[in-house]
């Protein structure tokens, strides 16, 4: 059933392509139905397979007989959580792109193709298939940004595409080498994870594959595509980029690099944890001095993804499940933040400059946007009661066991996070409006119903997961006890 999340997205692409160009409303409706169907399937799939987080095989077919490649879709708790995230982010993204009129047909086709690829990555347990879906997501991203983007869009789109492609080239090299070393017989992740790769091989294969994936997760210093790409992208695309595409990188790093090469992980662990911490602090500091509202959120994504990578490097139960929960939480919160900045503010005020916004008094003009941003900002800062708190706390606890110094530094990142979020909130929404100028701006169009639905949906998820994280943690935790993670567990502290 879960496999249909992939198929329904591609069916959506075909359906959208078949509609005539001028039927914009129908196109939107079809896209929304496809995204909702994906979300529904994800929820139903969790209800049916996943409550204990164990591994389920969905489809397993021989694909390329001569090379031992299978069409192998499955799901464990980690996949389920991320599939759910994809469903939510995809639906919200369509609600926030309700105003797309320009080439709407192509927009939703690329959008759904991207979603389909993302679902595919999260459900693939054959390395070749996983890579196919992973690369499939690159091209729609390029077009979404280059055609419908804003600031510096062609540059941002090309940079993003090339960074992703260079990352995936590194991954390709690593997995082809691993495939050959393991005897050129199978691409099954479970089989490969069992194969004892020599340590000298893991020594270079691990950083190659890990960094190749982590480029997409915004690992410092390879993060530079992220802020520019997010800023250039149209709202729905930046929601997806920050919401799910960055998770593809983190997921690949966990699912492939860390399970296949645990010895390599043990060697490089400290270095990567250091990079993650630098990312957390650096991203937060840079976000603190941005004048473009969207860049604040863009750099905050780098900072928050640093927590995911730091959590992965702890290799203990609490840190790893914290990392996966942070993937989910950041996907929701970053989506919400980008929605406020890109759709609610920029589409109406036509500027993202914090100085200019300060004089517009948006808090009064767009109270819904202000409240949404405040709530999302609190969630992003890691206030208790929101998903971000639980996730980052877990990562910090995990990191405390593994690297106390880094944990302290990451804690500093949270403090700076509060600072830049409050600064952005204050400047964008609650600036001092000079009385003489308050009438100078024409009234802004009110927030539309789809925007409200999308925002309320995302806020609800962040709150529910924040108040009752067990819902997801019960899925994530047991997944790490599957045979796939045997090597990882042997290296870690659980």
């Amino acid at each position, binding site marked *: 059933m879960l496999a249909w999340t992939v198929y329904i997205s591609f069916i959506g692409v075909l359906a959208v392509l078949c509609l005539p160009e001028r039927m914009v409303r129908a196109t939107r409706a079809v896209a929304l139905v496809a995204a909702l169907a994906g979300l529904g399937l994800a929820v139903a799939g969790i209800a049916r397979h996943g409550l204990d987080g164990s591994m389920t095989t969905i489809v397993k077919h021989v694909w390329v007989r*001569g090379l031992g490649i299978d069409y192998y879709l499955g799901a464990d708790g980690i996949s389920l959580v991320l599939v759910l995230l994809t469903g939510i982010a995809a639906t919200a993204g369509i609600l926030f792109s309700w105003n797309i009129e320009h080439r709407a047909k*192509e927009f939703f086709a690329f959008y759904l193709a991207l979603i389909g690829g993302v679902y595919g990555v999260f459900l693939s347990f054959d390395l070749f298939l996983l890579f196919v879906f992973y690369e499939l997501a690159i091209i729609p991203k390029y077009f979404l940004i280059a055609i419908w983007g804003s600031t510096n869009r062609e540059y941002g789109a090309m940079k993003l595409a090339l960074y992703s492609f260079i990352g995936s080239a590194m991954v390709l*090299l690593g997995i082809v080498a691993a495939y050959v070393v393991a005897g050129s017989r199978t691409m099954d992740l479970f089989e490969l994870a069992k194969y004892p790769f020599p340590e000298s091989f893991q020594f270079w294969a691990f950083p190659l594959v890990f960094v190749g994936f982590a480029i997409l997760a915004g690992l410092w210093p390879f993060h530079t595509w992220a802020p520019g790409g997010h800023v250039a992208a149209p709202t729905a695309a930046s929601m997806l980029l920050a919401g799910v595409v960055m998770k593809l990188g983190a997921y690949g790093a966990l699912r492939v690099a860390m399970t296949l090469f645990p010895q390599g992980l043990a060697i490089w662990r400290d270095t990567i944890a250091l990079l993650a911490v630098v990312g957390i602090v650096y991203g937060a500091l840079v976000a603190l001095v941005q004048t473009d509202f969207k860049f604040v959120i863009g750099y905050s994504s780098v900072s928050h993804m640093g927590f995911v990578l730091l959590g992965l490097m702890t290799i203990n139960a609490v840190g790893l499940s914290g990392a996966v929960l942070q993937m989910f939480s950041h996907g929701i919160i970053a989506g919400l933040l980008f929605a406020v900045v890109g759709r609610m503010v920029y589409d109406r005020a036509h500027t993202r400059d914090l100085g200019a916004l300060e004089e517009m008094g948006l808090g009064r003009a767009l109270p819904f946007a202000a409240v949404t941003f405040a709530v999302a900002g609190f969630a992003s800062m890691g206030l208790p009661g929101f998903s971000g708190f639980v996730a980052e706390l877990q990562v910090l606890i995990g990191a405390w066991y593994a690297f106390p110094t880094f944990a302290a530094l990451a804690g500093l990142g949270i403090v700076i996070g509060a600072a830049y979020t409050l600064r952005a909130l204050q400047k964008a929404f609650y600036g001092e409006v000079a009385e003489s100028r308050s009438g100078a701006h024409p009234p802004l169009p009110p927030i539309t119903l789809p925007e409200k639905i999308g925002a309320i949906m995302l806020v609800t998820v962040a709150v529910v997961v924040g108040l009752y994280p067990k819902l997801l943690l019960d899925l994530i935790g047991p997944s790490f006890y599957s045979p796939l993670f045997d090597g990882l567990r042997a290296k870690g502290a659980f």
Partner: protein
Amino acid sequence: MSYLELLSRFAPETIVVITALVVLGLDLLVLREEPLRNRLRIGAAFSGLGCVAAAAWLLAIAGSAEASSPFATGGMLVDDPLTRLVKVALLALGFFAILLATEGNFTAHVGEYLSLVLLSVVGMMLMVSSTDLLMIFIALEATSLPLYILAAFNPRDPRSSEAALKYFLFGGMAAAFTLFGLSLVYGLAGSTNLAEIAVRLADTGRGPDALLPAALALTLTGLAFKVAAAPFHLWAPDAYEGAPAPSASLIASGSKVAGFFLLARVMMVAFAPVAGSGTWHHYAAGWMPLVAILAGLSVVIGNLAAIAQSNVKRLLAYSAVAHTGYALLGVLANDPRGVSSLVYYVITYGLTLVGAFAVVSAVEDREGGSNLTDFAGLGRREPLLSFCMMIFMLSLAGIPPLAGFFGKFYLFAAIIGGARNLGWLWLVVLAVAMSAVSLYYYLQVLKQIYVLPEPERTAKRRPPMVTKALVGLLALGVVIFGCAPDLLLRPLLAVIHGRVF
């Protein structure tokens, strides 16, 4: 062996030769008075029919008991399941070139043009079959000479003559090198048969010969020219740009497929004892280091030079040089898996490139040029052609699930598996890094098509249905071979079954 048996074994080649003569005669004697369009269509119909008949013959005898046994005519030619499979691909590529020609309006010499296409296809088929130095040289020339003329076939465009002249001069030079190299090989081994040459060269009693490196390098030069490997690629951009689209597509696809097959056969069979090694820290003199250098240079030069091109045909030419570099990895694997990955790669590459050329020629017809800027806004005007072009470009860049991706994956797996201790990794690293570069220029084409706005222009003529159908068919093929590689891979592995040639 009787001539009758020979004819029956090589019936497909015979069919194509007869078709060529029939088409020539028909056009000269019967169709003289008809308008050009009809002459083209009737001639192309006959030529296409000949290709289909020959391919059908090859496929029909594939199952018969007689056909499964390899057949050698005194060591001159060989006919076995593998060569038959490659010949079917060559006939298909020739067929596509003929289809592309039906809508061309560059020549009034229809009969001559079509029969030359067919004759060069016969040359390619002989290249695939030949196992003897003399036969190899004859086949090479039988392919090249018609191709030189085909490149020159557009009298109105001076670039066509320029292309042909450059192609001819470089080609003639390369042929001279090859011939010299082959004569040295004969002098060293005392035989013209590939298998016997291997036996004589393996006889180390005489000690290494100083002439061997010269013989190897010279032979390789000619073959490298045929497949446009750097640094013997200089003719390619001009030939691709100037030659009429059907000729260019044949030069870039069919002639390359046959060239690679021959290159692999000569290196893997005749020079098997002097393979040497080009792997990391295990260098040994032989053909492997030479081919490795060619592959490395091709990948780097092709990809970097393609970035700087503003004309799509030249861009495709440099990208073709890069793809030559990738395909050479299959030769370097030097095992059955390498051969199957090579054949898979060059066949799917040929299909992709013919498709891309068809789109470029349609744009050229409409816009009067093939510069990148002529593609601006094509996505709005020609959704189908644009979508297919996207598929071709992404397949060339190696994006899954298209054929180009699986081809590259298979090549990389084959060459890494071809040496102990991942010795070829250095070359694969280079190839992978350069393929990351390649996405940039393929995206430049797609950016023009989809992102940039359409310039204000008056309505031009629509591309003909035949071109659209051909392009759609090829794009479908690229997608299908990418999603289900087994369609081509299983027959390929079945005919190779664990042996090199």
